């Protein structure tokens, strides 16, 4: 369980997951922050106010999935790197996962990399379709990975050794 291993449980993940219908509609932020800690930048950074204001900075973040358009600003703005964007509308065969990346090498558009789940286990391959980087991201790049639909709620990292530096 999470407190012992660092791996969020299926129940945790479920609590952060929007409806099937919403997942199919387009990009949406998945906030995997399951502990009350004193931290509120996500609730301040969202340009659409989809991440709701916090009365107490120790509250867990809450999101209005209908307001969120999956822009991923919060992915680089979360100090805990606990926010991901998934987009089930990407294509017939593939869904998109946008994840924060603060390592070298940085994968390039077109690279095929090994994908890891929340436990760091290899679960398949993903194709890098975009790497977002700008000054406002402050060195937390956002990698856009195309993965099989049934893995968009599983893929959460990349095996660094599979990136061609």
């Amino acid at each position, binding site marked *: 369980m*999470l407190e012992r291993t660092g791996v969020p449980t299926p129940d945790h993940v479920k609590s952060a997951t929007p409806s099937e219908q919403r997942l199919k509609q387009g990009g949406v932020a998945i906030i*995997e922050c399951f502990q009350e800690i*004193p931290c509120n*930048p996500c609730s301040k950074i969202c340009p659409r106010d989809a991440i709701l204001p916090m009365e107490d*900075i120790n509250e867990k973040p809450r999101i209005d999935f209908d307001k969120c358009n999956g822009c991923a600003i919060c992915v680089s703005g*979360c100090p805990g790197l606990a926010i991901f964007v998934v987009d089930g509308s990407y294509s017939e065969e593939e869904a998109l996962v946008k994840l924060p990346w603060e390592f070298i090498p940085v994968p390039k558009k077109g690279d095929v990399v090994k994908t890891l789940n929340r436990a*760091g286990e290899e679960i398949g391959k993903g194709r890098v379709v975009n790497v977002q980087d700008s000054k406002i991201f402050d060195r937390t790049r956002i990698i856009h990975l195309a993965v099989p639909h049934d893995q968009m709620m599983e893929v959460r990292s990349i*095996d660094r050794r599979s990136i061609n530096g």
Partner: protein
Amino acid sequence: MINTQIAIVGGGPAGLVAALTAAELGAKVVLIEQDSALGGQLVKQTHMFFGSEKQYAGKRGVDIGLMLVDKVMKDENIEVLLDATAMGYYPDGVLGVNQLEKFIKIKPEKLVVATGASEKTIAFPNNDLPGVYGAGAVQTLMNVSGVKPGNKVLMVGAGNIGLIVSYQLMQAGVEVVAIVEGSPNIGGYLVHASKVRRMGVPILTSHTIVEALGETEVTGAVIAKMDENWNIIEGSETTYEVDTICLAVGLSPLTELVSQSGAKITYIGELSGYIPIHNEELETTVDNVYVAGDIAGVEEASSAMVEGKLAGAKAALDLGIKQETAKRIINEAHEELAQLRNGPVGERIREGIRKLGEVR
């Protein structure tokens, strides 16, 4: 003899903010730092800070440090003494400082001690082998000097420091084979744990290091599982081939100076050990001596900065400077501290502060 209104010992997050707050109110400040640069632990913190915007949340610690240091260096009310170690504070109100073997006497009207904390260690066979490091040393090597401490590391301790330094080691291209933690639960923020775990680093709770292996340097580490009474379960030993063992097993407040000054010290486990007895406005039991930051009880750097603000404003208030503004800043600082400590992760600190109130 240097005469000043406020002397501040320690140029880390608490001391920097204390100096800026007091100087902004108009006080003349001398800031004394033992190292050859200001910033304290902030200079090594490459991760984004938590908290709220009032504590610069979302910015990286190193950038917060650079911003604060820049402000301090430009402030005409602040005189900075680098490479300067405060040696003692005496009943006549004189602070003795050794700066590069030159003895300087400073007579401040108020003294803020923000000396921080030092790392704890743990006992295990061969813990004196080269290759066994404190997490602070590993961070300094990597993030300040640009030197890799090793190639394969076992991390001991899954508090925020152990988790963050593991992540930073991976960023530096060092392999972290595992993080072992004696407690049954991860002590640091779970988001930090999740971000190292999804990179493939196992976090082994209820585990401890049994011994370091090697003749002249670390070549391996033996770990084992522990039962609920913290006894090693025989036969559960695992050996890792590593060249570095990194210890992140907690911090102890650095109380030598404040203790020498005559301040009463008490032991409060929740605040990380022996701390100077102080009130809510950070006044110690010695007249004109205040504390701020980890020395007053080990917390996050965000809280240290707010305590710096509180101590700086309180010292200025007690000097009779801009009373109304100083009082407003003190109230703001109290509110910020209450917010930072309000949740479940602040429970231990709240309990420590409650116990401190009883001792007082």
